[in-house]
C-alpha cells in the first residue's frame, strides 16, 4: 500500500512535470503536510525533484537533490550531468569511485529475486520484461529468459513503452515492483531526458563489433544510437535535459554499451512502442549476446552505422532499454567473468554464484568509464577545455570513437575557438552516429562561424529530416538563414525552436542575437534573460547582453555582463577582448590593456585582441605602439582592410601623408563595404596632398 502510494505520487509528479506544472509536481514529491516523508522512488525521485528545483531557480536545493540521487544510485549519470550544468559537480573520481560499486550491488540482487513483477506496466528488469513480454515484441520473451536474473537497472520505461500507443510516459514504468525500500532497485531513471540522451549513450557507448551488431540487429532492428533517441514526440518529456535515462544508459553504456544499446533501443520510429524500447532492451536478443558483448565491451566496436535513427518517441525507451541492457550486461559480465564471445549463446545468466562478484566487477567497469566521462563532462562545463580534451583521450579507442564523445570533443574545440578542429570532430561524430541530434546546434554554429553555407544548409536539412520537432534542427536552420543575412526568417526559425522546447537555452540565445541584428534591443534583452533563466551558466547569453549594452552605449552594464561571461568561461579570448573594449569605453584603460594582452596570449590565432589593442592605443594617442601592433597584424592577416585603414588613419594623424595615402589605398583595394569606402575616401580627400596626387584620386 505504502509502496503503491509513493509510486503513484512519483508518477503523478512526473506527469505534472511533463505538463510543466512544476508546483504540483513538487507538492506531489514533497507534500507540504508531511515534511519528513521520503521522496518516492529513490534516486529517480530525487532527480525529478532536482529538476523541478532547477527550473524554478532554486539552485541550492536542486544541487542537494541531485547529490542525493547520486548517493542513492551512483550510476545515475543524468544527475551528475545536471550537477555539471549547474556548475556544482564534484570530481568524477569521487562520485564514481570504486567504493560506490558496493552500493550498486544490492539492487541487482534484489532485482533478480523480484521476479514477480506485476504486469502492470512495470518495466523493471527482466522479470518485468517477462510480464510485459506479452505486450512487446517477441524479443521480449527472448529476453526474459536470458534475463531472468538480470536486474534491470532502471527499467521502468520498458513497460510503458509498451503501452506506447498514447505515448504515455514510459515513466509509468517507473513502477518497479520492488518496494521503495530497495532504493536502488527499480529505480526508474527520471523520465526526462534529452534527445541527446540517446546520444550520450550512443556516444560513449562503445561500439559493438559488427558481428554483434548483426546478431543484435536481427531482431529488432532498431539499434539505437544514442543520439537517435529522441524525446517522445509528444514532448511528454520535456526537453532539454536528458533524463535520467542516463543512468540506465550509463549502465548500459558502460557495460553493455557496446552491444546493448545498439541493439536496444532502436528507438526509431514513431511509435513509442515498447518494442522499441524493449527492443532496445535488447534483451531479447541482446540480452544474452549483448551481455556477453558487454563484458567484452572493451574489445568491441559498435558499428554505429547500424544504428537506426532514433525517433523521438523512443527516446525514453531507449534509456531504459539500455539500462536494462546494462543491467543485463552487467550480469552477463558477471556471470561470464567478463569475456564472452559474442555469439556464444548465453545461457541464462544466472550465475548466481559468481553473481555478486560479477556485479561488482561489472559495476567497476562501468564506474571506470563513468569516471572518465564524468570528469570530462565536468571540466567541459567549467570550460576548462584543454583539460577536458585530455581526459577524453583517456578513453579506450572504441569508446572515444562514438558519437557522443566525439561531439563533446567537437564542442570543446568550439569553445576553444578552434573551429576547424571542431568542424572535423563534429563531422566525424555525425558520420558515426548520423541521427544524433544533441550537440548539432553547436555544430551549426561552428559552420556559421566558418561561413560554410553549403555544409550548414545541408546539415540543417538533414537534421530536419531526422526530426522535425527537435529544437536543434531549427536552430541549425535559423543559423543558415542568419548566415545569408536574412535575419527575420532566422528569427522565425529560432522562435520555432523555442516553441518546441522552451528549456533549450541556446534557442533563446540565438533569438537574442537575431534581435540584435535587427536592432530590436529590448526583445534581445528579453530573450537573453530567458536563456539565462534556463541556464545561468550559459555564457553566450551574458555575452549577448554585453553586446546589446555596448551598442546602446551603456558601458557599465556592458562591462558587467561581459564580466559575468568571463567569469564563467575565463579562457575565451573573444570574451576577454570584448571586456577590454567595454573597460576602455569606461576609461579604465590599464585594466583594459591588461585584459587584452591576456587575450592575445590566450589565443595566438585570434587577430581580434590585437586589433582591439591597436584601436585602444590609438585612442590613447600611443601611436607608435599601435603601429607596431598593426604591423604584426599585417603579417598575420595580410588581406584585412580594416588594418590598413587604421594604419592610414594613424599616419594621417601623424601627418605622414604619403604613407597614409598608401595604406588607405591598400584598404580600398581590399574592397571594404560601402560605409568604410565612404570614410576612407573622405579621409583621403582631406589629406593635404599636392595637386597631382589629388587628381589621381
Amino acid at each position, binding site marked *: 500500500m505504502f509502496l503503491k502510494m509513493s509510486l503513484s505520487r512519483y508518477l503523478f509528479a512526473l506527469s505534472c512535470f511533463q505538463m510543466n506544472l512544476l508546483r504540483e509536481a513538487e507538492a506531489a514529491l514533497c507534500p507540504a503536510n508531511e515534511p519528513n516523508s521520503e521522496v518516492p522512488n529513490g534516486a529517480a525521485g530525487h532527480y525529478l525533484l532536482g529538476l523541478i528545483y532547477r527550473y524554478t531557480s532554486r539552485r541550492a536545493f536542486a544541487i542537494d537533490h541531485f547529490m542525493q540521487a547520486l548517493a542513492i544510485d551512483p550510476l545515475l549519470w543524468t544527475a551528475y550531468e545536471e550537477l555539471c550544468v549547474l556548475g556544482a559537480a564534484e570530481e568524477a573520481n569521487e562520485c564514481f569511485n570504486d567504493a560506490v560499486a558496493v552500493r550498486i550491488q544490492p539492487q541487482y540482487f534484489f532485482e533478480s529475486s523480484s521476479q514477480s513483477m506485476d504486469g502492470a506496466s512495470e518495466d523493471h528488469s527482466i522479470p518485468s520484461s517477462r510480464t510485459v513480454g506479452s505486450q512487446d515484441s517477441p524479443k521480449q520473451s527472448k529476453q526474459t529468459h536470458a534475463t531472468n536474473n538480470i536486474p534491470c537497472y532502471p527499467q521502468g520505461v520498458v513497460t510503458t513503452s509498451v503501452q506506447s500507443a498514447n505515448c504515455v510516459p514510459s515513466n509509468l514504468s517507473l513502477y518497479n515492483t520492488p518496494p521503495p525500500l530497495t532504493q536502488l532497485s527499480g529505480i526508474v531513471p527520471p523520465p526526462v531526458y534529452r534527445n541527446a540522451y540517446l546520444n550520450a549513450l550512443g556516444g560513449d557507448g562503445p561500439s559493438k563489433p559488427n558481428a554483434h551488431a548483426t546478431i543484435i540487429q536481427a531482431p529488432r532492428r532498431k539499434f539505437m544510437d544514442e543520439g537517435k533517441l529522441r524525446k517522445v514526440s509528444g514532448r511528454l518529456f520535456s526537453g532539454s535535459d536528458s533524463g535520467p535515462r542516463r543512468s540506465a544508459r550509463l549502465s548500459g553504456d558502460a557495460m553493455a554499451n557496446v552491444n546493448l544499446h545498439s541493439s536496444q533501443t532502436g528507438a526509431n520510429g514513431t511509435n513509442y512502442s515498447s518494442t522499441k524500447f524493449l527492443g532496445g532492451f535488447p534483451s531479447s536478443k541482446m540480452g544474452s549476446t549483448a551481455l556477453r558483448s558487454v563484458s567484452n565491451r572493451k574489445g568491441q566496436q559498435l558499428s554505429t552505422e547500424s544504428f537506426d535513427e532514433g525517433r523521438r518517441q523512443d527516446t525514453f525507451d531507449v534509456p531504459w532499454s539500455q539500462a536494462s541492457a546494462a543491467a543485463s550486461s552487467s550480469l552477463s559480465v558477471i556471470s561470464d567473468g567478463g569475456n564472452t564471445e559474442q555469439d556464444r549463446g548465453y545461457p541464462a545468466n544466472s550465475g548466481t554464484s559468481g553473481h555478486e562478484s560479477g556485479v561488482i566487477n561489472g559495476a567497476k567497469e562501468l564506474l571506470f568509464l563513468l569516471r572518465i566521462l564524468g570528469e570530462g563532462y565536468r571540466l567541459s562545463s567549467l570550460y576548462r577545455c584543454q583539460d577536458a580534451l585530455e581526459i577524453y583521450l583517456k578513453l579506450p579507442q572504441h569508446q572515444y570513437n562514438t558519437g557522443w564523445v566525439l561531439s563533446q570533443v567537437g564542442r570543446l574545440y568550439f569553445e576553444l*575557438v578552434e573551429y576547424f578542429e571542431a568542424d572535423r570532430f563534429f563531422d566525424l561524430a555525425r558520420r558515426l552516429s548520423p541521427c544524433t541530434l544533441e550537440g548539432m546546434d553547436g555544430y551549426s*554554429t561552428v559552420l556559421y562561424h566558418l561561413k560554410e553555407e553549403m555544409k550548414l544548409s545541408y546539415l540543417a536539412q538533414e537534421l530536419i529530416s531526422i526530426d522535425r520537432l527537435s529544437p536543434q534542427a531549427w536552430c541549425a536552420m535559423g543559423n543558415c538563414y542568419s548566415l545569408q543575412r536574412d535575419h527575420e526568417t532566422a528569427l522565425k526559425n529560432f522562435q520555432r525552436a523555442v516553441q518546441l522546447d522552451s528549456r533549450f537555452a541556446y534557442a533563446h540565445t540565438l533569438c537574442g542575437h537575431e534581435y540584435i541584428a535587427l536592432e530590436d534591443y529590448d526583445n534581445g534583452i528579453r530573450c537573453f534573460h530567458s536563456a539565462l533563466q534556463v541556464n545561468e551558466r550559459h555564457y553566450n547569453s551574458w555575452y549577448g547582453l554585453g553586446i546589446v549594452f555596448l551598442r546602446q552605449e551603456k558601458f557599465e552594464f556592458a562591462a558587467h555582463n561581459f564580466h559575468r561571461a568571463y567569469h564563467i568561461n575565463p579562457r575565451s579570448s573573444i*570574451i576577454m577582448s570584448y571586456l577590454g*573594449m567595454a573597460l576602455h569605453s569606461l576609461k579604465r584603460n590599464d585594466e583594459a590593456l591588461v585584459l587584452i594582452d591576456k587575450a592575445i596570449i590566450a589565443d595566438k590565432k585570434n587577430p581580434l585582441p590585437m586589433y582591439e589593442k591597436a584601436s585602444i592605443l590609438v585612442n590613447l594617442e600611443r601611436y607608435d605602439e599601435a603601429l607596431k601592433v598593426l604591423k604584426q597584424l599585417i603579417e598575420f592577416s595580410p588581406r584585412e*582592410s*580594416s588594418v590598413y585603414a587604421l594604419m592610414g588613419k594613424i599616419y594621417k594623424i601623424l601627418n605622414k601623408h604619403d604613407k597614409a595615402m598608401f595604406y588607405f589605398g591598400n584598404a580600398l583595394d581590399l574592397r571594404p563595404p560601402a*560605409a568604410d569606402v565612404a570614410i576612407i*575616401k573622405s579621409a583621403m580627400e582631406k589629406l593635404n596632398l599636392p595637386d597631382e596626387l589629388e587628381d589621381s584620386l
Partner: protein
Amino acid sequence: MATESDGEEDTTGKLSGSQNLAVDDDSREMAKKAAWSVSSCKPGNGVPSLRDDNLETYWQSDGAQPHLVNIQFQKKVKLHLLVLYVDYKLDESYTPSKISIRAGDGFHNMKEIKTVELVKPVGWVHISLSGTDPRDTFIHTFMLQIAVLSNHLNGRDTHIRQIKIYGPRPNPVPNQPFHFTSKEFITYSTIR
C-alpha cells in the same frame, strides 16, 4: 551601392529600368519599420501594394499632382539607394516620368536632393542617393519623400509597383571604426 545594370541609363542620363534588382550585399532594406503614407490613393491600390513584394499589385494615386510617397523612420538613418519598380508597357500613361526625391526631418523642412527622369522604364529603377563627395555617400535623414511630378503621356495619376530603400549594414562587431573583411577576422570576432 547599387550597380546600374547595362542599359539602364541612356546617353542623356535618363533612367529606363532594368530587369534585375541589383543591390550590394552590404546594403540592407531599411524601410520595414518605417511609416509609409501617400498623398492619395485609389481604394485597393494603396500603400500595402507598394511593399508587398508583388509586382502585380501597384499603388495608384487619385488626386492632383505632385503625388507623394512619404517614408518616415523612427530615428535618423543612413540611406544610399532607392529602387522603384515601374512598367511602361503595362502602365503607359500611368508611368511616372519625372521624380523628385526630398529628405528632411519632417514635412516642414524637406529639401530636394535629387531629381530623375525616366524614359519608358520597364523594371527596377535604381536611384542612388549619394552625392559626388565621398562624405555624401549616405544621406542621414528622418524622412524621405518621393514626389511624382509628371507622368508619361501627361497622365494625371500614377502607378508604382514596388519601392525599396537601402542603407548600409551596421558593423556586426560593435564600436569598431571599420568593418572586418577577411575571413580570419570575421570568424574570430563574435561569439554566437
